């Protein structure tokens, strides 16, 4: 039974992709081949196209001010999307990231007046990571669907944010926190540099570290990974811890940016982050996706919002635009991967 299905599918697939059949192709064909196989390249091209179109439509788009604005807007979404990428790579999903941003921002707000900013930031990060750990442990050892567990955590996190803050906003954010978003190095905003550094670390981890490859293996075939001796429980939990931690990092930048802490903070980030990861070419079934793809996904979403603003399109249209892009991105991925895409 199995022999026939395997041989058949292998035959049709070699027919489609022929990885080593034509080593000497003409340049355009080779470029196309590269585009079809390298998702990072495809993303870069997409960004360039989007930028080109937007700069044609609005002369204001390519101005320094607007580009700084775009960078600024991508930091918070980018931080959350990085954690979401790891979770989606193992075939999971984290719906609680927005709520965790909210509750860890409140932790920051409650502690900085007495303990000072550095300790308060640590407490903020620790609370995000700890709630992520709770997610990971319950999902991994309780064998409960990540959707359910993180949906519960989303509700708990948001509720805790209201309880802890008494539903009040916290103001008087110290300058040292504000400096995170106002300072710049060589003209590049400090918060954007942080984003790039975090993504660089993420890329190195996913490409060159055992843990990173383990995440891919878990999402692709957890049973095979287990038999090969990989620590699938440890790394699955780690993915959720990182997602919680990155939500808290986003909370710090959010506080620094809007100079106020509100229990509603971070709302909608869960869907934005999932959208960025999916636009970036990841499969919701796990095993496929890339950190650079996610970053590109974040940029594309910010560009579209920014572009629509510049064109004075009603903000109510933004959802339609982003939604269409999500669906189009998955369709394109499926076409390019020869029907293999599973998302």
């Amino acid at each position, binding site marked *: *039974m*199995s*022999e*026939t299905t*395997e*041989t*058949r*599918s*292998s*035959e049709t*697939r*070699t027919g489609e*992709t022929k*990885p*080593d059949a034509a080593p000497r192709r003409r340049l355009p064909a080779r470029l196309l081949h590269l585009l079809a*196989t390298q998702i990072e390249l495809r993303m870069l091209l997409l960004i360039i196209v989007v930028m080109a179109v937007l700069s044609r439509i609005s002369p204001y788009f390519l101005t320094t001010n607007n580009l700084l604005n775009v960078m600024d807007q991508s930091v918070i979404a980018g931080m959350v999307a990085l954690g979401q990428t790891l979770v989606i790579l193992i075939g999971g999903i984290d719906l609680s990231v927005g709520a965790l941003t909210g509750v860890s921002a409140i932790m920051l707000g409650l502690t900085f007046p007495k303990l000072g900013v550095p300790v308060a930031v640590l407490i903020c990060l620790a609370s995000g990571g700890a709630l992520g750990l709770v997610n990971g442990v319950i999902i991994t050892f309780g064998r409960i669907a990540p959707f359910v567990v993180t949906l519960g955590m989303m509700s708990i996190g948001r509720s805790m944010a209201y309880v802890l803050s008494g539903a009040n906003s916290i103001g008087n954010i110290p300058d040292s926190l504000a400096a995170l978003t106002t300072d710049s190095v060589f003209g590049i905003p400090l918060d954007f540099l942080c984003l790039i550094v975090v993504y660089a670390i993420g890329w190195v981890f996913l490409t*060159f*570290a*055992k*843990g990173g*490859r*383990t995440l*891919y*293996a878990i*999402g*692709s*075939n957890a*049973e*095979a*990974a*287990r*038999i*090969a*001796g*990989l*620590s699938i429980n440890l790394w699955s939990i780690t993915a959720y811890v990182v997602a919680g931690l990155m939500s808290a990092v986003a909370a710090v930048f959010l506080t620094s940016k809007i100079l106020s802490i509100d229990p509603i903070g971070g709302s909608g980030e869960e869907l934005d982050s999932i959208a960025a990861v999916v636009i970036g070419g990841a499969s919701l079934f796990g*095993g*496929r996706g890339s950190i650079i793809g996610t970053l590109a996904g974040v940029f594309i979403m910010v560009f579209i919002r920014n572009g629509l603003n510049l064109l004075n399109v009603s903000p109510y249209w933004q959802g339609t635009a982003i939604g269409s892009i999500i669906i189009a991105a998955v369709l394109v991925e499926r076409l390019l991967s020869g029907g293999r895409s599973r998302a």
Partner: protein
Amino acid sequence: MSLLALTEIWKRFGATTALAGARFTLGAGEVHALVGANGAGKSTLSRVISGQLQPDSGSIVLDGKTMRFAGARDAIRAGIAMVTQETSLAPDLSVLENIMLPRLGMPGRLDWGAMRREARHLVTRLGAEAGIAIGARVRDLTIGQRQIVEILKALALDSRIIIFDEPTAPLSPHETERLFDMIRNLAATLHGIVFVSHRLEEIFALSDRVTVLREGRVAADAVPTRELTQGELIRLMVGRELSDIYARAERGTTAPVGTSLGTPLGTPLGAPVLRVSHLSAPPRVRDVSFTVHAGEILGLAGLVGAGRSETLETIFGLRPARGGTIELDGRPFTPATPREAIRKGIGLIPEDRRGQGTVPDFSVRENLLLAHLGAHRGPGLAYRLRDAAVRRLLALLGLPEQRLLDANLLTFSGGMQQKVILARWLVLSPRLLLLDEPTRGVDIATRSSIYALLRRIAAEGVASVVVSSDFEEVIGLADRIVVLSDGVDVTSIPSALVDIEKLGMFAAPRSSAERTHTVLEGLVARHGGRAFWISVEHGRVFCFDCVGTDAEADPGFAGGSFPEIAATRIQEALARKAPGFVTEPRNGLTTLLVPIHGRRGHDLGMVGLTLARATHAPDGAALARAITADLETETEREAA
């Protein structure tokens, strides 16, 4: 006129020819067995019949009309249904809803009352009243009951031809018997039954005619089953080509053979690497003991469900052991995770290559280095460390080096994938390899090279344990075979001493072993002494079962042992094989031997009774008749 006739069926998958001019005919009211070794093409042919595969050429004639099925749906509409091991039922719906599922999609109001009546009628027609409640949820049914629902579903569609693809693999003995009764009922109502199997016992118990496939060709074309013996059928299935592929020539088949009772014969090849004693891991593994030596290939044979895979998984840390001990190089070893086992030099090639072996999103190189990654200490990948080993292995396996960078392992043939997964472990230079059905879904040529590779690493001192459902393969490949039956090891025997028939009897064929055991117990209860079931061949006794505790009446063998006749205590009786009690001149034991036969007359060895003193012996001829009659009553009682 035949119901269905396939002629000159060709089917190729890439470079592999799965069917090369196969023929198959099926008459109404017939159970036709489709037989062949792994990779012979029987599954491909049954999928052609059921419309799941389209042949490259050839004709399918159903009821005198030439058919061309575009898919399984066409075949179902034409009245051909297939019942497979993995059922296609909706687990949350009731039995009734599943049976009538095709009707739920039709427009108009559903007449539940009529559907219920119809379903009950089908259940009666199948003779499955005892087994199935039509209101039950399918999720709550056993695998055997689900199969019945599949059959009912086929009947509800007015299928006239039903294909059973290895239906008994997951079934208990009782369920198997019940299934066979239903299949006979179906044949009696003029259904045509295609029975795909490689289990000889079942073929002889059930089928009217046999078609044997070998490498896509018909080796026996619709031969009446009663004209065949097991030996002939095996020869037809295996052929000369296959028996040559095991590459055991360098070891020779006439290894020096010891005579000690119950211990492995032949010269041990090296120090013991793995010693398993009284291992239990419920529910499947109950009491398993065996030892593997360096440089030895040990076969773990038995039926599906005997606990073979589970034994390997327990040794590998995938499944907790409840009792017993595992020793690795003489030191106790209780792995909690595969990683611990891997770091001690153990590798596992799992049964389900797609589900447990390949990582589809990884390149071939990363798939090959997956176990390296698991074994590696440190945060990085250190793939480079293995470059030299990888290159050496690729050459050994005949894999071109540039294919290493292929993005997807699934573009490889099943055989190539299996080679890569083998290489995944060989890269780590393991000391013990556990292989679960290593050649399933692998073409003959690759099988041969996998065998050669296993031989080669054995020569380098690696110990291997190979689980295989293919008795032919176990005998050809392994140096020694441990047979498991119901989670207990029943014998450990050099492969040079057994053949497929005897291995089958050790593995306790469900329909015969139980009733023989009942008869043996009855003999001892009435007459005392020792009662046993044996087969005598090449000057050796193979004892499949032995009952009784009378030390004085010890015949010189026990269940699972296989001494030479000269080493037993009842040489005279075994040499003469005369009817009636034979008394030994040397020790005064007196023995009655009664040849027994299967339902279709094939040889099933002998049942014997040894008593300590001739004076107490009852009338031999009468007892022999009684034993034969007892065996028949047991058979009938089971069939009823």
